[in-house]
């Protein structure tokens, strides 16, 4: 929709937008350019500023087998957490959308995880999955040593993924339900008249119609698996045991702020930023062509 009525003023619009522009310049564009500078330079050990090293930092990052392990792990983490969380949220939204009596209570509760800080959920799940405590740890009482995320990398990764998936349920549920509720009732009635039962309508009618939302959520979840994972991992495993839960953001933090290798961390940041931008770009392209109904 193109607006026709505008205010005319030479200075005022700039004054209004200035705070936002200054903030994004200082905290977004400038830092991003600094990251580029660091990624292509190296700080000299004896001081005296940075020297230009071209793609050396990137070559070093990509030549490191540990980095590739981290990338693969981040991919696995993203896919597993996204898959579990979205499937659960979708199933719940599909049943809530039938608006049976009493559904409102369920609907309200399903949103709760959205409010919880990742590290807070991390602490709770760490206790739930603790091998010594009396919840999942009870298994160890029956079969000693069957569960121990403190020493077993696969267990630790599973624990973090389950927690991440749980955290995402609220957000995914909100979007799935909203999308389902936008489908016009007449479509259901038409489907029902053609003899499609509720289950058939879910699969053949609702799922295809909410495809744009599903795709949008897929990208948002993958991006959140890069961002929210830090708090979870820092509280639950600190990347251990022996690096088995180290994902990309955690490695950047570790190399940059613990190892003080700014150039390496900056190069990794650039790679991650490009990855996230590519994902967002795909998302916008898709949304432009999204299916219109109603």
């Amino acid at each position, binding site marked *: 929709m193109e607006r026709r*009525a*505008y*205010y005319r003023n030479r200075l*005022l*619009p*700039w004054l*209004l*937008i200035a705070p936002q*522009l200054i*903030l*994004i310049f*200082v905290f*977004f564009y400038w830092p991003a350019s*600094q*990251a580029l500078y*660091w990624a292509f330079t190296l700080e000299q050990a004896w001081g005296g500023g940075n020297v230009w090293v071209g793609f050396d930092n990137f070559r070093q990052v990509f030549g490191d087998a540990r980095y590739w392990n981290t990338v693969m792990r981040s991919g696995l983490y993203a896919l597993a957490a996204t898959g579990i969380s979205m499937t*659960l949220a979708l*199933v719940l939204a599909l*049943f809530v959308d039938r608006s049976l009596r009493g559904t409102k209570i*369920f609907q*309200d*509760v*399903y*949103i*709760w995880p*959205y*409010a*919880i*800080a*990742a*590290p*807070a*959920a991390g*602490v*709770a799940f760490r*206790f*739930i999955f603790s091998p*010594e405590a*009396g919840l999942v740890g009870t298994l160890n009482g029956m079969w000693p040593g069957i569960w121990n995320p403190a020493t077993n990398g696969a267990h630790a990764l599973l624990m973090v993924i389950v927690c991440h998936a*749980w955290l995402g349920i*609220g957000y995914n549920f909100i*979007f799935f339900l909203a999308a389902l509720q936008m489908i016009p009732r007449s479509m259901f009635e038409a489907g*029902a008249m053609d003899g499609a*039962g509720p289950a058939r309508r879910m699969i053949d009618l609702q799922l295809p119609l909410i495809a744009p939302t599903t795709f*949008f959520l897929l990208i948002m979840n993958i991006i959140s698996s*890069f961002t*929210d994972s*830090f*708090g979870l991992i820092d*509280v639950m495993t600190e990347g251990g045991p022996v690096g088995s839960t180290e994902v990309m*953001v955690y490695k*950047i933090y570790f190399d*940059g*702020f613990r190892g003080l290798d700014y150039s390496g961390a*900056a190069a990794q*940041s650039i790679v991650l*930023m490009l990855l*996230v931008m590519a994902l*967002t770009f795909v998302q916008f392209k898709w*949304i432009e062509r999204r299916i219109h109904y109603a």
Partner: protein
Amino acid sequence: MIERSPLFNAISYAMMVIGFLIVVTPFWVVLVAASQSLSEIARVPMSLWPSAHLWENIEAAWNRADLGPKLLNSLIVALGVTFGKITIAALSAFSIVFFNYRARMVCFWMIFVTLMLPLEVRIVPTYSIAANALSPFQTLLDTLGLTGLISALTGVEVSLNWNLLNSYTGLILPLVATATGTFLYRQFFMTVPDELVEASKMDGSGPMRFFFDVLIPLSRTNMLALATIMFVSSWNQYLWPLLVTTDRENYGTVVMQLKALIPAQNGTPDWNVTMAGALIIMLPPLVIVALAQRWFVRGLISRDK
């Protein structure tokens, strides 16, 4: 309901109850564990029924993690981000939607791009700015040769310095500097009919009058939605506060304290105290989300699509 199908309704209820259990169990475990004594919580398997020690555990957690001042810090940061973001977002969206100047689309896209990269992804570069938030301007002056010029003319050596480490501004500003709110407002302002603008022009009101007397009252629902989203996300920040506050004593937030509450590797496994602390820390945003659900759900959806 279109048709009666008792079997499918039963399946629906069953699935919703399973979902309810999945979502609620962690909350329940936190609450139950927070109410048990050390010996009760050490039992394997532990009881899933609340006990009577909630207050002592909360007191222990409160003292161990120094929660009083930290809650205050979290509140200051969350409110600061919320107010800052709402103000800045409303003003810049107003500028983009209701004024016709050539660069507005450029400004729009410059703001839009910042949506793509969350703070966690660009944490290393953003941190570089924290020690001196004015360094971009200093560098600009230096490279343009203005520093030399000014010192030659006035004898004053220009050195801009604004350290953000260990300050509320440092905790708040980088979180304000993103585009989420601007988009919510822009989306809403676009739906304001032209006639409204023309009518108020005819009544002789200037742009700011229009902004305060027409737009702000109209956008109250949006403001509530944005406030909820911003409050929750800034209360829950972890990585940025961790980096920008080296002086945790005075500037730490509650979410940073979670790690301090976890029992040490070989210490007493007093998870009851840990869970009592976690309960306090997760409660404020949970209450807000539960209360403001109606508005924030709408805001969240119009923000991201």
